[in-house]
């Protein structure tokens, strides 16, 4: 009997060897090298951001300014059920299979040619999850024979990508403390690298690296000074210097959530992660820069050590969370020299270019029309604050009902740009930034809330700045800081952008449209209404000689929950949960 089994096993092995993975009905494992090459391989999309650098640029040209008008739906796939809400996901495509995540921590594998569902993984969520800003998920990661994603109860789940069965599942933190994962994991050299979101009171943001095969924790890096990281389960090094920019023991509870994940540049071998705003909100309670909150951090993926940091909003007092993606790119200067740079469009309304090898400040230019809190940045990269626009210290009074002085300041706390990823075109050398024009009334209160004891700590109301638009997609030249063109949208932009060598810029709107613009002029060339607001991130790939475009549709996210006056305009948009796939039909 045993012999028979051995013989059949041998036969299978032999068959695999001769026929290859595909012929045996098995998808081939995804290698680290394939992930590194994702940005240039056109037949798949293996990572969030369409490459570890997250440039969201495709070299494909079949779809271009001339042909895009012929783009039509190929298939659509409903996420089904009653679990709709925000769909901020970006799909992956590997070996003819699409992997897409949805609201409520769900993941589907779908035949990329037909839209037929292959399997669904529906994560069993506990009652007590507390995601601050809707039950979204931004996407999966893929490596070897597994597909990975983060869940609203703060776990990373590894599934067999053929069957959808759980291989391992690891809680990074306790969801009961308010933690959740909404970002897509990043894969670097066999490690799954993730940030974390949430944490209601007294937490410190961290970056985590897990072994892709086993889920074992390799290292943890806290992003606030004074806290000690771990490596291989043992204490490693302290982040920064204790009490250098935080007083007392406030560094132990200093905030800095890492909820949007990071990018990776194989050239420098560094991870680029953003950290959230410091806690507590009232900046008068924590004098100093409050390192490394509201910062971009370069981290060594092997050890979790911070190689450099740059703080976009030192001593934040406006909730200018610093998590927005940092995109590595090659900056061509006027003298023709190429600098290894990294760019980021911050909540605070400024677009930063840094040297990605050492974090050296190169430039900061506004990408929104108003930036009250600072007039600009000096040569060293420090903001030139406008103190009139910092919400007042409640201890000084001056506001209504015992609040501190309230100010109206732009951008709002939802940012000149929020989570929605921008794109960089290697063809035009421009960044395409989904931005919003809004300000806020903001004030600090002398009181806080803790389970039944009094309430609040700061307050805000968001207000649009212009009558005709809030959203504006802008083409920014990173070399000059000049905006080449802008495309205005009535509702706030809340989805990702993609650009292609075919001269196109794709993005979605809350009104339900997926649109394609000319990358040089911003002229609208194509649009399609998906039936619900688009807050997902589009992708493109090539299959059977045809170029496909896909985007998830489903209105939700932070705007309808937080938007103040803005929410009144957007609350009538229909919810949804649908994967839309388009292609250019072959000429008969």
């Amino acid at each position, binding site marked *: 009997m045993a012999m028979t089994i051995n013989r059949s096993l041998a036969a299978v092995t032999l068959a695999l060897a001769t026929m290859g993975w595909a012929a045996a009905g098995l998808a081939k494992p995804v290698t680290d090298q394939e992930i590194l090459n994702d940005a240039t391989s056109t037949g798949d999309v293996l990572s969030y951001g369409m490459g570890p650098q997250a440039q969201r640029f495709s070299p494909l040209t079949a779809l271009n300014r001339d042909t895009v008008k012929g783009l039509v739906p190929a298939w659509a796939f409903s996420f089904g059920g009653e679990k709709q809400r925000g769909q901020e996901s970006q799909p992956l495509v590997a070996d003819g299979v699409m992997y897409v995540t949805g609201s409520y921590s769900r993941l589907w594998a779908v035949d990329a040619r037909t839209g037929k569902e292959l399997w669904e993984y529906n994560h069993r969520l506990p009652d*007590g999850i*507390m995601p601050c800003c809707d039950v979204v998920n931004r996407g999966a990661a893929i490596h070897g024979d597994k597909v990975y994603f983060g869940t609203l109860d703060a776990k990373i789940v590894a599934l067999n990508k053929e069957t959808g069965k759980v291989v391992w599942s690891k809680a990074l933190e306790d969801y*009961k403390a308010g933690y959740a994962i909404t970002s897509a994991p990043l894969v670097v050299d066999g490690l799954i690298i993730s940030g974390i979101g949430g944490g209601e*009171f007294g937490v410190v943001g961290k970056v985590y690296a897990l072994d892709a095969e086993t889920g074992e924790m390799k290292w943890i890096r806290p992003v606030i000074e004074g806290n000690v990281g771990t490596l291989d389960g043992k204490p490693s090094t302290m982040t920064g210097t204790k009490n250098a920019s935080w*007083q007392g023991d406030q560094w132990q509870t200093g905030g800095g959530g890492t909820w949007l994940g990071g990018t990776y540049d194989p050239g420098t071998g560094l991870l680029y992660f953003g950290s959230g705003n410091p806690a*507590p909100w009232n900046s008068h*309670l924590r004098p100093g820069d409050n390192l490394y909150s509201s910062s971009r951090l370069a981290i060594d993926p092997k050890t979790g050590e911070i190689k450099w940091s740059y703080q976009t909003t030192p001593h934040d007092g406006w909730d200018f969370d610093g998590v927005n993606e940092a995109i590595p790119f090659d900056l061509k200067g006027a003298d023709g020299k190429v600098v290894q740079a990294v760019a980021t469009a911050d909540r605070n309304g400024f677009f930063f270019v840094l040297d990605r090898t050492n974090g050296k400040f190169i430039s900061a230019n506004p990408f929104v029309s108003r930036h009250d809190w600072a007039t600009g940045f000096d040569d060293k990269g420090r903001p030139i604050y406008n103190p009139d626009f910092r919400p007042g*210290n409640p201890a000084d009074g001056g506001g209504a009902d015992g609040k501190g002085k309230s100010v109206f300041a732009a951008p709002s706390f939802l940012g000149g740009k929020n989570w929605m990823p921008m794109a960089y075109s290697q063809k035009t050398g421009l960044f395409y930034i989904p931005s919003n024009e809004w300000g806020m009334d903001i004030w600090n209160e002398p009181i806080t*809330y803790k389970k039944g004891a009094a309430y609040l700590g700061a307050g805000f109301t968001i207000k649009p700045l212009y009558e005709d638009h809030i959203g504006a997609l802008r083409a920014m030249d990173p070399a000059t800081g000049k905006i080449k063109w802008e495309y205005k949208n009535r509702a706030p932009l809340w989805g990702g952008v993609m650009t292609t060598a075919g001269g196109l810029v794709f993005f979605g709107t809350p009104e339900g449209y997926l649109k394609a613009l000319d990358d040089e002029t911003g002229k609208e060339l194509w649009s399609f209404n998906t039936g619900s607001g688009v807050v997902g991130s589009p992708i493109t790939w090539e299959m059977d000689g045809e170029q496909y475009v896909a985007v998830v549709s489903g209105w939700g996210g932070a705007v309808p929950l937080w938007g103040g006056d803005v929410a009144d305009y957007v609350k009538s948009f229909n919810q949804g949960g649908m994967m839309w796939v388009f292609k250019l039909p072959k000429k008969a």
Partner: protein
Amino acid sequence: MPSRRDLLGLAGALGAALALGGRGARADEDLVGTVNYDTIRARGVLRIPYYEDFAPYSTTTADGPAGIDIDIAREVAGRIGLRPRFYALVAGEKVDDDLRNGIWRGNLIDRSVGDLMFHIPYDRQIQINNDQVVLFAPYFEEGFAIAYSEQAMPGGFDPEADGDKRIGVEIDTLPDFYLTSANNGALRAAAVHFAKPVEALAALRDGAVDAVILQAAQVEAFAPRLAPQAIVRPFVMGGLFHSRWTVGCAIRESCRPLVYEVGDALAAMAADGSMAAIFAKAGVTWLAPAR
């Protein structure tokens, strides 16, 4: 003429009968969508979200939920003829979040909503901000207390001179903000932050801090066990800080008739001494609400 209590008892019996009868067992689970007074009566079950990690008021033990608010809730439910069903609620950043997750929009996962919440600040601004709920029936008054070591602070706490002491506070509470902002932050470095009140009191016992400032009930309930040598005084903060506040209940706007029934039950409990007895069982002094 039958008393109000008799009528309530009758309504309760009717509700129980309905729950067992025509609606079937699923009536208990009819929790999705708009729930009004009649549907609660029909199912005979009062759903009560509670804070899981909030001793001595409410906590989850091996035997189920326990604490002052849980005891009060059981008693109230019994007096109005409904069966209480408790479920834990994770506290949000603002009380508005708790009201949204607890009793009007409901749970994100199964979209079920609770009916009645205890331990909600009875506050005009919170009522104005939350028009889907009714805040009512303040049933006690809470404040802050300081527990200190006599050796470390022989004259008691002095905000002008104790910047070099170590003072334990629960993170992001009023005492925390008081220490970090009063007197231009002179006490900022003195604040030692703890995630849980019992951890602060254990630190006082161990000499790791010289004093702790917490909610009075937490000090009263845990100091005798954790830091029996400590001296306990009410703690009143100057300036803009609230040192005392009133705690009541919240219910969905569509269940307004329950406001009167629950309010009457709580008033009766205050009058007949059962309220004070529930607090005393937890080692806490019951203070009648000031308004």
